[in-house]
């Protein structure tokens, strides 16, 4: 039986090869790289972004974008800090932070679903506006001194070697894979991303699907923001500033088309692993954080440019072959 190589022609296959190369290189050059402790640490350093990347995958496959996630993270965490500093018990403050994210999501969905504005504009306004609300709440103060159990949840392992944020991520990941790849709702997300009109004429409730996604997106972002606050042990108006670019890069590098309709959760998972290992490897090799960001920027552009160029070359080759065949046939 011939082995099935077709997976390597798909985007996920390329990502898998890249990942194996990077992990292999890191493992050979750094002893102790492949230990559980190092990998937990690896995830822990960007876990909040990865959690948001899961829901961002749904949004981009749906041919929309949510630029406001990082600001919602900051806004929700600041709301939590604000309520806590105002004397509310921590549990209620956390609920208040989550509620703030949920309301932000409802607000985004209203403008996108009911008024019908492009999500790029709505969430650009959200990016500026929710960040602004975070500053309104805390001005230039920083709020810390949370109860010890809260800081411990963010920083200490909860089950085995895994801290809470990592467990939240794994649960959400399994849930996201099931919903996106194996449920009716997931199929709708793809169908709408492929063609909004076709979806509507086929009886898919386009508006409702989009609105659900944006509410979930902001709520998940709020959860991530609170986890981030627990890890840092303090909240400030500018927390999670600029995270949206990293999050979107993770999703796009995973083979999700910015025009919607294509991409899988597996691809995004691979791209997350690549980015984490690449950053970690470059960090170990003493490259600054800025260089790491630059390299990921290059990778992002190449991830679309290379398949495009390959497609062009392939088409040209096919044309030439067709011409040769014609010539041979004519003779």
């Amino acid at each position: 039986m011939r082995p099935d190589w077709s997976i390597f022609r798909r985007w996920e296959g390329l990502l898998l090869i890249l990942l194996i190369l990077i992990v292999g290189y890191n493992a050979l050059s750094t002893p102790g790289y492949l230990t559980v402790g190092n990998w937990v640490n690896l995830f822990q350093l960007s876990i909040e972004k990865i959690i948001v990347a899961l829901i961002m995958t749904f949004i981009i496959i749906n041919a929309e974008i949510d630029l406001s996630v990082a600001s919602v993270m900051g806004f929700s965490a600041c709301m939590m800090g604000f309520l806590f500093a105002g004397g509310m018990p921590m549990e209620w403050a956390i609920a208040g932070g989550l509620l703030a994210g949920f309301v932000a999501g409802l607000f985004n969905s209203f403008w996108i679903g009911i008024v019908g504005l492009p999500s790029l504009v709505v969430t650009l306004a959200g990016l500026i506006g929710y960040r602004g609300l975070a500053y309104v709440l805390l001005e230039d103060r920083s709020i810390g001194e949370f109860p010890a159990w809260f800081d411990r949840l963010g920083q200490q392992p909860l089950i085995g070697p895994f801290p809470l944020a990592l467990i939240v991520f794994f649960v959400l990941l399994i849930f996201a894979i099931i919903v996106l790849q194996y449920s009716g709702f997931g199929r709708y997300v793809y169908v709408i991303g492929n063609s909004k009109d076709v979806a509507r004429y086929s009886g898919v409730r386009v508006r409702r699907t989009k609105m659900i996604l944006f509410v979930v997106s902001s709520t998940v972002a709020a959860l991530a923001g609170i986890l981030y606050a627990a890890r840092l042990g303090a909240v400030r108006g500018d927390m999670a500033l600029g995270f949206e670019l990293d999050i979107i890069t993770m999703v796009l590098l995973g083979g999700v088309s910015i025009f919607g309709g294509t991409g899988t959760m597996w691809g995004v998972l691979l791209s997350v692993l690549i980015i984490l290992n690449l950053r970690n490897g470059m960090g170990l090799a003493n490259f600054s954080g800025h260089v790491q960001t630059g390299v990921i920027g290059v990778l992002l552009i190449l991830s679309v440019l290379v398949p495009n160029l390959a497609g062009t070359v392939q088409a040209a080759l096919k044309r030439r072959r067709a011409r040769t065949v014609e010539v041979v046939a004519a003779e």
Partner: protein
Amino acid sequence: MNTIRRRFQPEQIRELVLIALIIGILIFFGTQIDNYFSPRTFTRISTSVAVIAVVAVGQTLVILTRNIDLSVGSIVGFTAYIVGTILSINNDIPPVAVVLMAVAMGAVMGSINGLLVAYGRVPAIIVTLGTLAIFRTVLVEISGANSVLTNELPRWLVNLPPVNAFTLGPLDIRLLFFLAVVVVIIFQLVVSYLPWGRRLYAIGSNPDAARVAGFPAQRIIFTAFVLSGALAGLGGFMFLARFGNITVVAGQGIELQSVAAAVVGGVNINGGLGSPFGAFLGAILIDVLDNSLIRWLAISEFWRDALLGLLILLAVATDTVIMNRLRKVWARHELQVSGDGEPPAEKGGAGYAA
């Protein structure tokens, strides 16, 4: 009503509304803030609007073609820093050469974006998200974390911001603001009258039709990115002149401000609608609000960004809801005219692509 219809296009009415809104905001803050209507307020607003206006014009050219340029903030920072460094090493470079150098540097970076978008067929949001990071990385790496300092710069540059182009009654028109206005006027004329400018609208409103019609879409999109980069380079020069002290994070956030100015000014994010003049008005509106909220004692200045976000939403919502209705009224009118056997009215201004 008919005379209004014949005289104006919906887009021009939108610009009038924007002007009315700016005047309304000015009057409101005039009643709230002591000594608001002073030449100093005008100087303050006109100085800070200059940089963002120039960048927003470039952004408009790109958005008109249904693309977006998120790298302009990094280009502004890059040119401001590099030109500043070169000037602090060699104080004797003539001013004109300095400006040209900044513009050329921006154009080179813009052409990288343009090549990848137009010829590499990579979506603009991906390319410019990438170059946003890449240009900044290159800057941080070559800078070695040093800063450009005002006292190392030549005198003429440090003394440039308070120089007046001319005075208008009690108002001082600063040279940098005047430069920005000239840029706006030039590009307003370009997009209104030159074939290249009209094609920006054609490509943005229907890329497929533009290609079928035989427009060199790739070349036009490429040029739009080069110009956006060049204008960001000019913005970098103005940024350097205005602040003097430049760190490696200079210009961060200008990409979103320029998009916000364009969108508030009626440039449609889906391409094909809007004008540099509109983006200029959008930049002014945002800046007036910015500068006034800082001085308004009724609410904390921290409300600034929250209100700005809401303003963008309202501006775009008005655009989609009211403008669509207006355009329908105009279209119906034109349909009637052509139905009577007369040629449809000459379309002017930005209404071409509607």
